[in-house]
């Protein structure tokens, strides 16, 4: 059979301006939200107040035990109900694939960022916390000014590696028919019946981006290793 790589050039704008923008924006939003929530979850998990640490631990373990595809389905159907509950509406609120994806990936990745941040917080010597308290800082001040900055720096390479995985995993929004990079490519592929060309191209693009990012992480890792 003949291959027609021209299809890529024809759909370039749609693939990148629409699809890749969706993918990158989703990755950045979920990364930011995931790290913020994940850090809070990690602080809850390490809390001396048992109910709080059990609650956070339960959430993290639940998220890490079920497939991402199932989590995407859960939130896709659950978010309209949560929306109605929050706004007090008596009908489930209509939520598009975009909003649903942002919420899903933020909540899902928070569980993974939590475990990384937990290790990061634990990598900071206990004496530092005591020193903070001895100086008269309270819990939040100690966390914000002493522990978390060091935890972030120690964990930066792992946090970024997790973000590369997040970038790849956003392609699973395909299952709720969102138009991310893969979704856009798949729509073109099915319209023009050019599956081989489009999916090969998608694989190459994902590879180039993920591999470049992983090289950046590797260099960062080497530099941080010297500082320590």
């Amino acid at each position, binding site marked *: 059979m003949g291959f027609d790589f021209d299809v890529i050039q024809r759909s370039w704008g749609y693939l990148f301006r629409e699809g890749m923008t969706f993918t990158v924006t989703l990755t950045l939003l979920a990364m930011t939200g995931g790290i913020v929530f994940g850090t809070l979850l990690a602080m809850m998990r390490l809390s001396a107040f048992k109910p709080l640490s059990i609650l956070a631990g339960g959430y993290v373990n639940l998220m890490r035990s079920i*497939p*991402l595809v199932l989590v995407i389905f859960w939130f896709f159907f659950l978010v309209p109900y949560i929306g109605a509950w929050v706004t007090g509406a008596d009908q489930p609120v209509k939520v598009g694939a975009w909003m649903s994806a942002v919420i899903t990936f933020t909540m899902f990745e928070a569980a*993974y960022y939590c475990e990384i941040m937990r290790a990061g917080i634990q990598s900071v010597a206990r004496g530092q916390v005591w020193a903070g308290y001895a100086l008269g800082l309270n819990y939040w001040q100690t966390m914000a000014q002493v522990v978390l900055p060091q935890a972030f720096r120690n964990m930066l390479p*792992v946090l970024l590696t997790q973000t590369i995985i997040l970038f790849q995993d956003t*392609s699973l929004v395909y299952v709720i028919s969102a138009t991310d990079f893969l979704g856009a490519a*798949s729509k073109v592929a099915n319209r023009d019946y050019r*599956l081989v060309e489009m*999916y090969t191209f998608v694989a190459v693009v994902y590879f180039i981006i993920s591999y470049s990012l992983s090289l950046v992480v590797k260099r960062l890792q080497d530099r941080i290793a010297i500082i320590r």
Partner: protein
Amino acid sequence: VGYNWHWKVLFETEPGGTGSYLHYLIVGLGWTLVTALAAWVIALAIGALVGTLRTTPYPWVVRAGNLYVEIFRNIPLIVQMFLWFFVMPELLPQAWGDWIKQMPPPWSSFIPAVLCLAIFTSVRIAEQVRAGINSLPRGQRMAGTALGLTLGQAYRHVILPQAFRIILPPLTSESMNIVKNSSVALTIGLLELTGRARAMQEFSFRVFEAFAAATVIYLITNLVVVLAMRALERKVRVPGLIAAAGAPQAGH
């Protein structure tokens, strides 16, 4: 907003007429496990081989191993699924491609799914195996060769038996990952557990009952896998050999 739970739906007959919805989901779990297990066996074999090759003193072998790992680590799983399902049959000689495409369901999606998961997971296992081997003291290899063992014998009798014990905990989480990752096969039409929960939701309109049932089944499966691997860890433990203190890892 009230959601009217209707758990009895699990015991109603699914439209295909094969039995209750619960039975339908359990058959899905069967496909999940068969897919994961078949892929796991292949992944372990390839992963152990590639991981070991990457620690040998031959630069070209190491480079080839690195290339393999980088390729399959940097392409999303669902895209790899599509490559195996849509692209691979087109690139093979016509007769083979047609034979694959004409296989009756579920085999036409089962075989690409197993191959895809196997290769995807083998890369992660290769990383673990390499890390496990590198975590051994260099003296182990030197002592082996000093005793007159060939490189192959040193790997066979000294290095690998220790390395595999060290990486058992990370292998446990990989074996859970492969069960979870098999759900991506629903995108190429394999009706495994998540796919069947989705289908049940479409047939019965009982959204949360379907997903809650699937979630509970996944949780039980995870528990069984963890307990089984822990029993294995205890059984093969060598006194005094300390297992790798799991460094924080990125995952999904």
